[in-house]
């Protein structure tokens, strides 16, 4: 197992380097003068000069690339063009709401989607299964922000059960913190639940045809034991994979959900940076989200060997 883990960890290096190069190339390959793009239309010559110097745009392109990669390795994401604050500290001050939202969503998804998938897989094609699959297609198709606004409309405006928008830090008490997290979490879970329920269903159905399921039934195991102990456990690998891959749509969802519910997290920071044309911040957040995505999938791949000791590379 150990050589595999090392091999897998090393395999992320080229991917991360490519991400950094792509992000680097985007600004430099966009038609037009990069400094002018960053400064906006009404910048003076002196401002352009200033940006060229701080971003190193006056250097040859290969030098720029090496400086850029070196800074990244040192954890330096540059400074905001607007406030001059280091991007890293901007990220630090906005990370808590995003992590709370993401974790709550993953927990809710697993609690809801895995049982949904297992229940659907018990009798494929029957009413319960079709209902679950209908929910799943709807979860895929209804955009996160539409779910968000429908929830606000029904549960906040009509019924008054939840605050319309906003965030309360966990330090100010767990009650208000959770209360304000409920609607955003449900909205964000939609697509994720759809994804995980679908894959749970199909992998449990696959496993149900195996010999050891017949054996378990033959020895008189209860149906719930067969489903949970034998089927679900062996179906775990694809489910965990999809939870990892789904992080990509989770990240998209975070950006949208934080905007809908006015949560002061990293997703809102993306939108604020776009509206202010603060490119270093956008760039830093893209790198952060992409690296997180790659690292989560690395973790998932390593977890395989724990979930399924048969897997040997």
């Amino acid at each position, binding site marked *: 197992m150990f050589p595999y883990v090392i091999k897998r960890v090393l395999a992320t290096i*080229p*991917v*991360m*380097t*490519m*991400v950094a*190069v*792509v*992000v680097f190339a*985007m*600004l430099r390959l*966009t*038609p037009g003068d990069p400094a002018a*793009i960053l400064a906006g239309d009404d910048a003076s010559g002196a401002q352009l000069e200033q940006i060229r110097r701080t971003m190193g745009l006056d250097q040859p392109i290969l030098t720029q690339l090496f400086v850029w990669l070196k800074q990244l390795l040192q954890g330096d994401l540059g400074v905001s063009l607007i406030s001059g604050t280091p991007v890293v500290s901007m990220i630090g001050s906005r990370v808590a709401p995003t992590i709370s939202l993401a974790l709550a969503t993953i927990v809710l998804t697993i609690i809801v989607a895995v049982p949904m998938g297992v229940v659907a897989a018990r009798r494929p094609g029957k009413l319960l299964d079709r209902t679950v699959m*209908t929910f799943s*297609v*709807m979860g*895929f*198709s*209804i*955009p996160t*922000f*539409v779910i968000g*606004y*429908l929830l*606000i*409309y029904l549960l906040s*405006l009509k019924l008054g059960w939840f605050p*319309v928008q906003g965030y309360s830090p966990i330090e100010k008490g767990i009650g208000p913190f959770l209360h304000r997290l409920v609607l955003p979490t449900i909205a964000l879970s939609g697509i994720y639940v759809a994804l995980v329920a*679908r*894959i749970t269903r*199909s992998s449990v159905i696959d496993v149900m045809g195996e010999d050891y399921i017949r054996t378990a039934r033959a020895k008189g195991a209860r149906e719930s034991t067969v489903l949970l102990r034998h089927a679900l456990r062996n179906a775990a690998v694809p489910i965990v994979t999809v939870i990892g891959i789904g992080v*990509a749509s989770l*990240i*998209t969802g975070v*950006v*949208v959900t934080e*905007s809908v519910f006015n949560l002061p997290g990293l997703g809102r920071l*993306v*939108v604020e940076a*776009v*509206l202010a*044309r603060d*490119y270093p911040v*956008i*760039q830093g*957040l*893209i790198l952060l*989200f*992409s690296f997180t*995505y*790659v690292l989560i999938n690395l973790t998932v791949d390593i977890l395989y060997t724990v979930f399924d000791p048969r897997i040997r590379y």
Partner: protein
Amino acid sequence: MMKTIQNPAVGELPPVGAGIDRKNSTFNQLLLSLKSIPVLVALVVLVTVVVLAAFAPVLGTVDPIAINPGGRFSPISEAYWLGSDAYGRDLYSRLLYGARISLIVGLGAAAASIAAGLVIGVVAGYLKVLDAIIMRVMDGVMAIPSILLAIALVSLTGASLVTVLVAITVPEIPRVVRLVRSIILNVRSEAYVEAAVSLGTPTLRILTRHMVPNTIAPLIVQGTFIFASAILTEATLSFLGAGLPTEIPSWGNMMADGRMYFQLYPGLVLYPGIVLALTLLSVNILGDVLRDVLDPKMAKRT
């Protein structure tokens, strides 16, 4: 000549030569799937959206961007079939013209990403020298969440229909490249391709006549999903303020405009949101049907 070389193993990815029988049964299968009520409803919804978009000017609409300070936040009335927004613009007309924008973006992004992905995928699948480099770049692009990549591209190039189309297309390309490349790699070793090579068929002809046709069915399926995801991405970008210029009446822009007044006039956000959701739902349901019929191998996997 082709038919004599064909072997049973080719059955999974039939060459064009085996066309006629299969086409007929494919068509029948598609007809048969219309017996399912959700599929039928999805088809009706999608056709309705297309018809409304195509005939928007003659369906009782007014200028979707005409501002009327006297008619702000009008309720549903004879003049405003679905009410009006903060600028007195007619919501019904904006919804119909918004459908045009969504369909243009969806079709444009699907066509562009498939064209680009097909070329790059064939090159990667056929030329071993370039394969590694191309695929590493694709891995890099795929590791960037597509909405963030699109946001960055739009914020660099400025908002316009073309830049938004490009920004939506670029993140979709790697998945098409992977699909095309894997098919090309698969058929490379097929007997009919080797036979064509040994007969001295020019490379370009082998590619276009014997290899690329295998990608058509999977690409049609992929295309429907890209179509839906492009419509969603455009709406998301516009909703976040990083999409189409605000004067273009797209569904995402309508929702972005309505956000501020949501508590008083929820319809401003909910009408375009619900129409968007219904459209995406229909396309995804029909895409699933297409996949089951055209590409059974892929259907089994999900």
